[in-house]
């Protein structure tokens, strides 16, 4: 198992190289660069723009730029400089990463924490009112566009006053005690996590329900029941354990997709995260910040898939890695 994990980590290198090269290339395809906006400003002289191009290395051919970028990462662990923010990319990403992870992980807890039990109940009590109600909300959650839902929640917060209207912490956060701070964070996390987690929750719930229904029809379930096992043991220890197999695989992608979907929620609900940073950088053609964001997202995706694979091996004794 250990060598397997090591090999997976080594796979990171060619994958990241490929992703970064492709991203770099695609960004170059779009017309213009970081300075295009400035060219349209009558108060910025031509020399100034030429100087900036030289300073940022934007006048060199793109393979050269890519090579320099790679060299800086490998030799100095320096992810480059953000033109728009006038700071090193590493520092920017580090600051926002924690915020985005907090939101995404909370959304995942919410999504999975509700999806699994509801999915199981729906399958076990198929066609009961619980099943029908959960299905209804699942379809609603799957269909509603996240931007619309986010705006709706912001409106809800404004009208009722029960939740803050966006933001990560209140202005007086620093003067609160420890539990005050925890409470404040949760208070601010509630709606964004709800918006972010609803879509995945709905999908996973339906998935769980479907898988479990299939498994419950299997012969060994009937055998287990006739052996005299309690119903809860039959369902949870045997049926669910098998039904959950595909969901563990999905789990790996779940975190990564939450990170990218977070952008819309971050903008509407004023959450200072990585998604917003990366998309702003994209629109501003802030080359190295976009690359940093892409590499970070790719790394998280690969690592979460590795975790999912390991969990799978732990859950399913039939699977072994060597």
């Amino acid at each position: 198992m250990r060598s397997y994990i090591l090999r997976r980590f080594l796979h990171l290198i060619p994958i990241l190289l490929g992703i970064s090269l492709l991203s770099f290339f695609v960004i170059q395809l779009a017309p213009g660069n970081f300075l295009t906006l400035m060219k349209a400003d009558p108060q910025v002289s031509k020399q100034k723009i030429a100087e900036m191009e030289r300073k940022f290395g934007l006048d060199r051919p793109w393979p050269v730029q890519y090579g320099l970028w790679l060299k800086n990462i490998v030799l100095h662990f320096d992810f480059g400089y953000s033109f728009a923010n006038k700071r090193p990319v590493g520092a920017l990403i580090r600051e926002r990463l924690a915020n985005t992870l907090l939101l995404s992980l909370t959304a995942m807890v919410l999504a999975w924490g509700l999806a699994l039990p509801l999915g199981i109940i729906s399958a076990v009590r198929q066609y009961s009112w619980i099943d029908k109600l959960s299905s209804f909300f699942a379809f609603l959650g799957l269909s509603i566009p996240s931007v619309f839902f986010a705006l709706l929640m912001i409106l809800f917060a404004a009208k009722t006053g029960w939740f803050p209207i966006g933001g990560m912490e209140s202005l007086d956060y620093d003067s609160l005690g420890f539990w005050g701070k925890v409470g404040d964070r949760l208070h601010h996390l509630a709606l964004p996590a709800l918006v972010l987690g609803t879509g995945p929750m709905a999908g996973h719930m339906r998935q769980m329900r479907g898988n479990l229904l299939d498994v419950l029809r299997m012969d060994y379930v009937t055998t287990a029941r006739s052996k005299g096992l309690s119903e809860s043991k039959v369902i949870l220890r045997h049926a669910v354990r098998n039904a959950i197999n595909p969901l563990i695989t999905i789990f790996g992608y779940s975190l990564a997709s939450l990170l990218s979907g977070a952008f819309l929620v971050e903008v509407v609900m004023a959450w200072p995260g990585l998604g917003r940073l990366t998309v702003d950088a994209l629109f501003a053609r802030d080359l190295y910040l976009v690359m940093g964001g892409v590499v970070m997202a790719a790394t998280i995706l690969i690592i979460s898939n590795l975790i999912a694979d390991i969990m799978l091996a732990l859950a399913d004794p039939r699977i072994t890695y060597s």
Partner: protein
Amino acid sequence: MESINRRLAWFGAWALILSFVVAGCGRGGSKGSEARRTDDFPRPEEPGAFEGTGRYGGRIVYAEISDPKTFNGMIENEQSSREVLTPMVEGLTNLHPITQEVAPSLAKSWETTDGRTWIFHLRKGVRWSDGVPFTADDVMFSFEVLYDEEIHPSMADLLTVGGQKFDVKKIDEHTVQVTTPTPYAPFESFIGGVRLMPRHKLEEAYRNGTFESAYGVNTPPADLVYTGPFRLKEYRPGEKTVLERNPYYWRYDSEGQRLPYLDELIFVTVPDHNTRILQFESGDIDMIDDIPADGYELISNGAAKGDYTIYDLGPGLNTEFMWFNLRTDKNPQGQYYVPLYKQKWFNNANFRRALSYGIDGKSIINTILYGRGVEHWGTTATVANKKWHSPNVVKYPFDLDKAAKMLEAEGFIDRNGDGVREDPAGNRLELLVQTNSENNRRGQIGNLVQEDWTKIGVKTTFSAIAFNDLVRRNKETFDYECQLLGLGGGGLDPASGMNVWKSAGTTHYWWPEQKRPATAWEARVDSLMDAQIQELDYAKRKGLYDQVQYIISDMCPLLQCPVRTVSVAARNRIGNMKPVILEHRFFWNVDELYIKSPEEMAAK
């Protein structure tokens, strides 16, 4: 079955509760505190005076669209940074936004004898926000940085004439002399744009070549030193910037109280404008800038309940216009940028005039701007520009019949009855108008213009493309026919438009960077712009610029669309609130703002 239910129910409930724990929801409100106060910080010898009065305490919360990118007043070049810096940095002078005249700031007075040599008398006794005295050495240092070739702030280009920098000399600890190579009319307007930087904090970074990364957003607040009414207290990336009172500030009110009144000024980052509006309505933020046309009714209906006032500031300074590609030359591959037959249309002034009559300004105002706009013709000097706007321009009120007749007179006639005119050579009158897709309003204007022009036989295709693509076409490849864009910000002074109106200018939209003026009228505008920049007498200078406005409106290289009017809203409990159309709308007098006491609120 039951134990499953219980377990699952417990599991689900735990997940639900975890996500919905509601802690004490404190919402920060601003409470005022004690009225009068004196302090132990040294009073400057020559303080500035504020004729009014106010009350100490409290804070104001303002929402920005994005984070500040730097706290370095010399190199910042975008709005979010500028908003946060305005309460902190100062120059020798500043522009009083209500009178639109130059007013003293860190220079208490200045004079010139020959129009080229200017003597500035610095305010005595001013200190930086860390207590160190402000002297002429700081001014010398700031100008040294300004004119540094490597750093090259944009401001430097506005203080350079014919490639020559201004000569800056220290006369004594409180006197500085600036000499321009030739009389430079916008000198007084532009000199205040040089932000004064503390030599004792930044000289080392400058000598080391790290000036541009100095005073970035991660600067420890105690190190961020300026002379303005507020200084940095805290910065949280992506979330907020908190400013606190500068206890050394040099202005006093009519009762001898040192300004500013507010304890704190907080800038929160809220990118989405719907969220900003809701936050304003619920009291999280205290003012809202540039109320969008479609939100106006909602906000004005809530004024009583939300205890705020709407200020209608009138027409703004942003213009929106269309123009044709007037190039008649060939590209490096030897082909015409604009096909020869189309050049004949675009370069025909009556063609442009006719199509300008085809822009339905009133409908744009009523349907697209929700009634919040005024018609405008001429240059970028809208009616909001009190000193320079000229009403004597050629106007093109919407008249499709007139447009049609003018086209007929130029030989554009629909000879074959297919609804599209042909030019005298038989080419169909077809053109492509482009604007940037990110701007919804421009998309609507483009659609309206396309319909109207098509009605009079000019087959118009309208498309919205990415902004960068648009700029690349009008600045690098020049493969476009007609674009719709806008110009905003910039300054009031005609000199800030040199690059637009001069034929050699880089943003001379219809044909930038000409080696020689392509037309007689462009040559005339060139000489007028050259003359006005040296004309120190205001009346004469205005006369010159009035002529430029007339010629631009007459020859119609830009087909103007209406100018939007701007409305803002601010909480009633903020005293001395006088929003203006110029920047900074709310904070131009941030040192005078205060939170009214409950008694004062009840007395209204």
